[in-house]
């Protein structure tokens, strides 16, 4: 796995933030975690983030809104939404708005890895990777 990709994790839940950071590092990515959307938006890492993994439910700004703001400000960071409370309506809206995927917090790590690769490919503008299989 290449390490020039930079992954940002945004989640207000510290335990999940820690777990996701560890998992991403174990996959060979460079990771930085943020406890709120605002903190991420204000971070210098905003521009260098290759893939954003964000929680759907956060107190002041959730993952869906964060994605909307990124799109609105012209930042094409691929976004993976993750939630402890999957909701079909939110999923449909989020996917329609262009997020890579909408995952439950008890996800399959292979699936997540697949989406991350997919996100990175999308970020690389058309670099195909046959190994990426979108499964959920």
């Amino acid at each position, binding site marked *: 796995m290449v390490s020039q990709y930079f992954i940002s994790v945004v989640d207000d839940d510290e335990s*999940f933030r*820690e*777990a996701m950071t*560890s*998992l991403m590092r174990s996959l060979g990515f460079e990771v930085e975690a943020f406890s709120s959307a605002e903190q991420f938006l204000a971070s210098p890492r905003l521009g260098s983030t290759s893939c954003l993994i964000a929680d759907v439910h956060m*107190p002041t700004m959730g993952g869906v809104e964060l994605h909307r703001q990124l799109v609105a400000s012209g930042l094409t960071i691929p976004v993976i939404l993750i939630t*402890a*409370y999957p909701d079909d309506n939110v999923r449909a809206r989020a996917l329609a708005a262009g997020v890579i995927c909408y995952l439950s*917090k*008890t996800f399959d790590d292979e699936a997540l890895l697949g989406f991350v690769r997919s996100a990175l490919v999308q970020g690389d503008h058309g670099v195909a990777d046959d190994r990426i299989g979108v499964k959920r």
Partner: protein
Amino acid sequence: MSPASDTGPDNSLEALWERVSRSAQGDIVSDHLIDALMRAAIEYAGAGRGLLILARRDEYWIEAEATAGGGTVSVDLRTAKLMATDLPQSVLHYAVHTKESVLLLDTAQVNLFCADEYIRAHRPQSILCLPLLRQTGLIGLIYLENTPSPGALTPARIAVIKLLAAEAAMSLENLHLSSDLRERDTKTRRIIDSALDAVLSIDERGRITEWNAQAETMFGWRRDEATGRILSELIIPPQYRDAHDKGMKRFFCTGEGPLLNRRIELSALRRDGTEFPVEVSIAPYQIDGNWEFSGFVRDVTEKKSAEASALRHREMEMELAHANRVATMGQLSASIAHEVNQPIGAAVTNAHAAVRWLAATPPNIDEVHQALCRIVTNGNRATEVISRIRAFIKKAPPLKDRLEINDAVLEVVALTRSEAKKNEVVVELQLADGLPSVQADRIQLQQVILNLIINAMDAMTASSTGSRRLLISSAKSESNEVCVEFRDSGPGFPDTGPERIFQAFYTTKPAGLGMGLSICRSIIEAHGGQLQAAAGQPTGAVFTFTLPVQAGT
């Protein structure tokens, strides 16, 4: 004992005595005896007029007046206050003070009493006044006047009359004593009969000896029917009769009775066979060496049914409160699932990471170790959430315990964190340090806190305007109470005012039952506190509940 001389066979002392004794027999001592005595005295003394006077406290009353005329004696058993016109006052006073008899054989002669108005007015030829003395002192006097000849009243005759007077005094005293006793008995009877409790007594063999009016009403047996019957057969339900008999036997053997001299609850039997609950106190006492037992019985049917309905009411309140908790939990189920999923998700993610770190070349044991430690923490957190919820929806009788109000608030806030997040509500806490403990049922109190938080969130979510902010603060009030305030930025109250919302079935929510706040208020009030609502400034609602501080903190 015989008179010195006789005036005839009818007036012989023996005849007199026989007449008097005959009259003294039987119950109706009073009138016949007095009549006989007066007649005997008049006849024997040969007096024209006689008075029987009784002392009552410091007053003198005529009990009988006898007059002789035309060969007959008439006795008037009138009761009248003694007047100065009835007899010579000076004679009376002398006899009363000296307790000696006064004998004036010829009032025309100079004597101590010749200035007496009565004597001057009526000029009785002779006067005999005998004080009636008993151990208790002077109880009355016999006054005789106008003996036909000055010589009629010989010392022997006077002695006989004194004897009659002594008999009269004794009889009258007995009469008074027994009339006192009767009076006291009547009074006791009235007290017993006017008692609201059934009053009864039994002898050593368990036979009824006393049965008051209330007992008649309560059990349905008249006094004359009940008296003499075996108590246990009459009013003790068959299943308890053995125990009653054993209890009596045990008392006679050991002098002890676990049911004696205290108030106990039993079941009693009416005449119609129905049983009813009673409160009974039984006390043993002795009369002439024989044991008797008095019983005071109170019908507690109404009290029991009031207690039962109070119990049903409490049970219903508990059911309602429980239903409300379950319903609230139902409403929160999504958020609670989130609250549990969060640590589970973290655990799974950590496990994935651990597997990856282990599979790396070389395996990164340090990372594996850290991930596993995090999994332990995650698992514990999930368990905590679940046990908190289980405790919350468990149906348990209220148990008041000492608790810190801030801890109770924090636990509920943790439970609703996901709900707040979902509804984008910012919950702020301003909990005062060093608050005294309160005495409360944790679950019920947290139910109130939960309801108030959920209500605030619902209110703020329903209105789309402005930021959603809930400020929960705790403090100690001036009146030594702990108060907790929930201040939201929602739309506040409808025009009907804040009080309306506490009414049962009042709701502004499409799916609401409208029981939440009324349950909350009854819970807080059952804890001796108050739950109030007020409009917030500039908008929103402020709910405050107070709880009394636990004594000694």
